[in-house]
C-alpha cells in the first residue's frame, strides 16, 4: 500500500503519459462503455478479450490533500483499513464484534484524552486507561478472521492486490480471472458499502513502520518531506501523505470513519475495468452490488490556493548520504490549457538519451549519474510543481548541478526548439499511449485517473492531439512564465564527511 508516489515511480509515470491520437479514439470508444449509477458512481468498462482475465482500478477523488492538521495520514490509514473486511468478511460474529469495537473506541478516547491532557495529567490513570484499551482490543480481536479479504482474492487467483494513496486520490486495484467478476463486484463494493475498522490500532503501528521506512530511514524520503514543506506554505500539498508521527500516534478509528463518510461518496468515485468483460452482462452485476452505496452529497471543494511564491526558498539537509538535488517551480493544475506545453517541456528535458538534461549533465559534463524533470509533483489536481532533479557523480556537490540546470532552463526560454527535436518528442508521446494499451492494469488505471481528473476518459487520447499542436513559441512563452527565480524552491543533500568508524 504505497503512501506516496515514490520518485522513480513518479518519473516512470511521467514518461508513460501519452496515448494515441483522436483518430484512434473512435476505435476505443466502441470498446468502451461508461455508466453513471443513480448514486453518482461512474463505471467504465473497456473490453479486451485477449485472455480470460480482467483488471480494475477504483479511484476515489480524495487524498491527503483533504486532511487537516491533527488527522494527517488518515486518507492513507483508511486505505489500509479497506483491506480489513466488512460485516460479512473477516469476522466470526459481527454482532458481538461490533459491540467489542465500540468498547475499543470508548476506551481509546478516554485514554487518549487523559494522556494528552496538557496540565494535571494523572500518570497512574493514564496507565489504567491504557490497559483498559488494550483489554478491549484483545476482546475484539477474538472475533477477527485475519486477512480474510485478501485470502479470498488470493485463492480466487488475484494478482497485483494493492492500493495507493496520493495527495489527490486514493486508488485500489487487482486483477482476477474473468469468471470471478461477480466475486470481485461483491468484494470491492463491500469495502465501500460497509467497511469495518477492526485491528485499527495495530494497523496504525504498521503505517508508522511504513513512515519509518519511506520517510525517516531513506535520504530521498527525508529530502522530499522538507522540500514539499518548503515549497507549499498554505496548500496541503506541503504536508506528507504518510502523515506526521504525532497524528499517526493519536487519531482513532472514529476519526477514520468520519473521514470515510465525508469523502468516500459514490459521486466522488470512478471504477475502470479493462479486460475480458462483457458490459451487457457486467453492468447489471455492478448495479446490484455498487447500487447499494448510498447517495450522499459531494464534499465541499478545497478552498485554500497556494499564494504566489514571490521569493526563492531553499532547504538544505546536512547528512552523510550522497548528494541529491531538486528544484521546483509552481505551475497551474493539470486542467490548465497550457498543460500540453508543460508535458512537452517535460519530454524535452527528460525523455530518453536525446533529452536535454541527459545530454548536458549526464553525457557531456558527467556531473550527474541521472537527471530529469517532471510535472505534477506531488499531485496534479491542484496547482503543483514542475520539478528538476539530479543525482551527482562522485566528487560533485549537489550545488554543482544548479548552474548547468539553469543553462538548460534558459535555453527553453530563449531559443526555439528545432522542428526535428519537437517532432521526435511528439512521435514518442503517441507511441507511449500505444504501448500502454496492451496492459489491462495500466489502462484501467489511466482511464480511471483521467475520468477523475477531467470528467472524461477520452481526454487521455485528446491530450496527445493537444501535445501534437504545441509550437516552439508555446514552449518559450510557458518557460518564461514558470521558470522564474522567485517561483523556485531548491532542496538538496549537502554531504557531510563520514564520521570516523565507517558508514553512519
Amino acid at each position, binding site marked *: 500500500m504505497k503512501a506516496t508516489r515514490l520518485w522513480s515511480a513518479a518519473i516512470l509515470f511521467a514518461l508513460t503519459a501519452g496515448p494515441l491520437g483522436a483518430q484512434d479514439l473512435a476505435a476505443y470508444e466502441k470498446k468502451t462503455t461508461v455508466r453513471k449509477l443513480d448514486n453518482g458512481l461512474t463505471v467504465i468498462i473497456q473490453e479486451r478479450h*485477449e*485472455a*480470460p*482475465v480482467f483488471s480494475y482500478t477504483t479511484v476515489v477523488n480524495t487524498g491527503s490533500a483533504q486532511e487537516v492538521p491533527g488527522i494527517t495520514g488518515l486518507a492513507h490509514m483508511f486505505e489500509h483499513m479497506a483491506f480489513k473486511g466488512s460485516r460479512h*468478511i473477516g469476522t466470526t460474529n459481527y454482532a458481538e464484534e461490533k459491540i467489542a469495537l465500540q468498547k475499543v473506541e470508548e476506551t481509546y478516547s478516554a485514554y487518549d484524552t487523559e494522556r494528552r491532557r496538557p496540565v494535571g495529567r494523572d500518570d497512574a490513570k493514564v496507565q489504567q486507561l491504557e490497559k483498559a484499551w488494550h483489554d478491549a482490543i484483545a476482546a475484539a480481536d477474538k472475533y477477527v478472521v*485475519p*486477512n480474510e479479504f*485478501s*485470502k*479470498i*482474492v*488470493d*485463492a*480466487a*487467483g*488475484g494478482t497485483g492486490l494493492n492500493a495507493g494513496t496520493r495527495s489527490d486520490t486514493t486508488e485500489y486495484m487487482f486483477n482476477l480471472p*474473468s*469468471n470471478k467478476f*461477480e*466475486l470481485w463486484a*461483491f*468484494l470491492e463494493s463491500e469495502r465501500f458499502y460497509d467497511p469495518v475498522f477492526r485491528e485499527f490500532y*495495530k*494497523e496504525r*503501528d504498521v*503505517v*508508522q*513502520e*511504513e513512515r*519509518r*521506512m519511506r520517510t525517516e*530511514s*531513506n*535520504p530521498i524520503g527525508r529530502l522530499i518531506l522538507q522540500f514539499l514543506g518548503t515549497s507549499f506554505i498554505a496548500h496541503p500539498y506541503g504536508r506528507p501523505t504518510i502523515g506526521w508521527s504525532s497524528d499517526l500516534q493519536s487519531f482513532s478509528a472514529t476519526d477514520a470513519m468520519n473521514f470515510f463518510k465525508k469523502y468516500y461518496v459514490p459521486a466522488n468515485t470512478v471504477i475502470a475495468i479493462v479486460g*475480458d468483460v462483457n458490459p*451487457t*452482462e457486467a453492468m*447489471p*452485476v455492478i448495479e*446490484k*452490488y455498487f447500487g447499494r452505496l448510498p447517495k450522499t452529497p459531494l464534499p465541499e471543494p478545497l478552498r485554500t490556493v497556494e499564494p504566489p511564491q514571490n521569493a526563492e526558498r531553499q532547504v538544505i539537509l546536512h*547528512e*552523510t548520504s*550522497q548528494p541529491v538535488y531538486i528544484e521546483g517551480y509552481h505551475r497551474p493544475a493539470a486542467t490548465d490549457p497550457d498543460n500540453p506545453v508543460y508535458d512537452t517541456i517535460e519530454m524535452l528535458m527528460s*525523455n530518453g*538519451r536525446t533529452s536535454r538534461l541527459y545530454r548536458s549533465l*549526464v*553525457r557531456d559534463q558527467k556531473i550527474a*549519474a541521472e537527471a530529469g524533470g517532471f510535472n505534477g509533483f506531488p499531485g496534479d489536481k491542484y496547482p503543483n510543481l514542475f520539478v528538476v532533479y539530479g*543525482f*551527482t*557523480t*562522485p566528487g560533485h556537490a549537489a550545488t554543482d548541478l544548479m548552474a548547468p540546470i539553469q543553462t538548460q532552463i534558459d535555453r527553453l526560454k530563449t531559443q526555439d526548439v528545432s522542428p526535428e527535436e519537437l517532432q521526435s518528442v511528439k*512521435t*514518442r508521446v503517441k507511441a507511449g499511449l*500505444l504501448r500502454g494499451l*496492451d496492459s489491462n492494469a495500466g489502462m484501467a488505471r489511466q482511464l480511471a485517473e483521467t475520468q477523475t481528473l477531467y470528467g472524461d476518459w477520452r481526454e487521455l487520447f485528446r491530450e496527445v492531439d493537444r501535445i501534437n499542436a504545441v509550437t516552439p513559441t508555446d514552449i518559450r512563452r510557458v518557460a518564461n512564465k514558470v521558470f522564474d527565480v522567485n517561483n523556485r524552491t531548491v532542496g538538496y543533500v549537502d554531504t557531510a564527511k563520514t564520521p570516523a568508524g*565507517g*558508514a*553512519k
Partner: protein
Amino acid sequence: MKMITNQAEARGLLVAAMIFACTLPLTAQVTSVNEIRTPPLRKLNMPQPKRVQLDNGMVILMMEDHELPLIRGGASIHGGGRDLPAGKAGLTEILGSAWRTGGTESKTGDQLDDFLEARAARVETGADDDSSSVRLDVLKDDFDTVFPIFLDILRNPAFRQDKIDLAKTQLNAGIARRNDDPEEILGRELNRLGYGPTSPYAAQPEYATVASVTRDDLVAFHKRFVHPNNIVFAIGGDFDSAAMERKLRDAFAPWPRGPQAPAAPTAMTAPKPGVYFIAKGDVTQANIGFVHPGIQRNNPDYYAVRVMNEIFGGGSFSGRLMNDLRTRRGLTYGVEGSLGANWDYPGLFEITMATKSGTTLESISALRSEVSGLRTQPFTAGELQQAKQSILNRFVFLMDSRQKVLNQAAILEFYGFPADYFRNYPANIEKVTAADVARVANKYVNPDQVAVLVVGNEKDFEKPLSSLGTVTPIDITIPELTAPAGNNAEGTALIQKVREFMGGKAKLDAVHSVREVTSATRQTPQGPMDMDVESLTLFPDRRRAVMKMPMGEVTMVMTPEASFMVLPGMGVRDVPPSQRDAARADERHDLLTILKSPDKYTFAVTGTEKIGNVDAKVLEVSTEGDTVTLYVDPSSGKVLRKVGRGGQVTDFTSWATFGGITVPTAFTMSVNGQPAGSGKVTTVEINPAIDPKVWQKPPS
C-alpha cells in the same frame, strides 16, 4: 413456448436469457462469497510460438500478435558476470551500457539515439550474472529500418571509449551511493553472506575493479560469448511469421558458430550460522535478514517448495510471515521470505523485514520461530488448499498475453527446460500433499544453519544484539580507489629483509623448481575435509597440484599453454575461467614467485598492525592490477600473514629451511573471521627432476 425461427433471434433470446440469469438473484442480498456462483473459466486459447533452429545452433521463437502495430523481441545470450574473474566485477554493468551507447562501426551511439528516438524505437543492451541481451521494441512500420541497427549492435559493437568512461562514471556513482538506503544494504550484504565471499554470485563492483575494466575486456566478452549457438532469439508482434522467418534466416543463418558458453558455476560457501551486524546511524528502523543456501529450479521437489513458499511468505497478506508479523503483531510494514530456486544455479533461503529499532530483537526472535515453525507447525489442510488454489487460479496470469507466452517459452528454451514445462505446471502443483510440504521443509530449511544479518542503529535496540550470542560485525566502508601504490622506500627495504630471511637473492635465484607435500584440512559446508596436496612448481609459470581427497584424486595443471583438471570419474576438463583466473592470482601471490621476480611487483608499506604481539608492517605487493597484503615482522623479515583474493587470510605459523631456502611449513586460513582451513607441509624438495610430460594435457 415460442419457436426459434432464425439465428439472429436465437442470439437475441440467448442474450436475454443471460441478462435474466444475471438479474434474477439481484434482489437477494449476498452476504457471503460462498453464495456467489463462479462459472468455469473460459479456456485460454494462446498459440505457442513457432520454433526454428538454425544450422549454426541459434534458436528462434516467433509469435504473431496483431493486436497493436508493434514488434518486440530480442536475443538472450549465454555467458555473464559469473563467468568472469572477481577482479573485473562491474564489467557486465559497463558492458550492458557501453554495448549500446558505444555505437557500431558505422554509427556512433549518439547518432543511433537520434535516429531511434525520432521513431520511438528502442534497441537496448544489457548484461547480467548469467546472460547478456540485445532487445528491440519498434513500431511495425519501422521494423525494416531498425532491424539492421539491432543486428549491427549485436554483431559489430564499437565500444567507443568515451561511452565506456561514461558507464564507469555512472557505475562509480552507484558504488558511492550504495550505503545510503538500509534496505539496499541488507539485500546486497545478505546475498554476499548467502553465497560466500568468493562465489561469482557475490562479486561486487568496487572503484578498483571498475578502474581495471578496459575496452579489451568488453571486446573479449563479446568475442567469447556472442555466437549464434549461445543465443535464443524471441520475437513477437504484428508480422507474418513466414515473412519474418525469411528475414531472420537471411540475417542469422550465415553467422558461423563459436565456442559454447560454459556451464553455470555453482560455487558457493554456506555462511557460518550466527548473527552479523552492520552499523547505520541515520535510520529509525532495523533491517533484518535471514539466509542460508536454497535449491535449483530443476529439483523435483520444486513444486512442493513452491507450495511451502506460498504458505510461508506468499499471498498478498495471507502467508504466515505477513499474517503473524504484520497483521497480528504490527511489527513491520513488509516481511518477505522464501526458499529461492534459480533456473540454473542454487538460490537462497532468505527472509527480509524492517521494524522500528526498539523491536529489533523481538522481531529476530519472532522470525526464528517462523523458521522453526516450518518444521514444527504442521501444514494444515486449510493452508495447503489456500496455497494451491492461489497458485492454480493465478496461473492464467503467467500467459494472459502472447508476449508473455513468448517470453516464458524463451526462458524455458534458454535454460534448457522442456517446452511443456508450464503446461504440466498446474498438474504438478495439484499433486503436492501436506506430507510433501513437510518433507521439503525439513529437507531444505534448517533453523540451525541460518545466518542473521541486522542493519541498524544499535543504541536504539531494546537489548544489545550480543544478548543473542557472538555478533560478527561487517564493515561496509567503501574502499577508496588508491592510486597504484607504487614503490615506497620502506617497502623496497622491507622486501629485501624478507628476501634475506627466506634465503637471500643468490640462493633464491638458484631455485628453479619446488615440490611440496602438504597435509591440509578445508572447511566446507558439509564439514571439515582432509586432503593431501602434492604441488610442483616450475618457475616462473608452471604449476601442477595433485589433491587426494575423500572422493578421489584431482589433478590441476596450469601452464601458459593450457589449464586443465583431471577429475575422478569425469576425465579431463578445462579449468573454468573464473577458477583459472583465481588460480593465476594465487600464483602471482605466492611468496617464492614474488621473491624470484621482484621487479614485476611494486612494494609499499602502508602501516603497522599487531599480529599476535608483533607490530607487523603492512606491505602492499601489487602487480597486474591486483594486490596482496603481507604482514611482516620488521625485525626478522618473517612473513606472518598474507591477505589475498576474496579477503582470504593465511597465517604462517611455522617455518623451516630446506637447501638454504626458508619456507612456511604450517598455516591456518580464514575468510571473514571464520576458519577456512589449515595445513602442514610435510615434504619440501628444491629443484627436483621433473618429467616434462606432466605439463601435457592427456587426451580426454
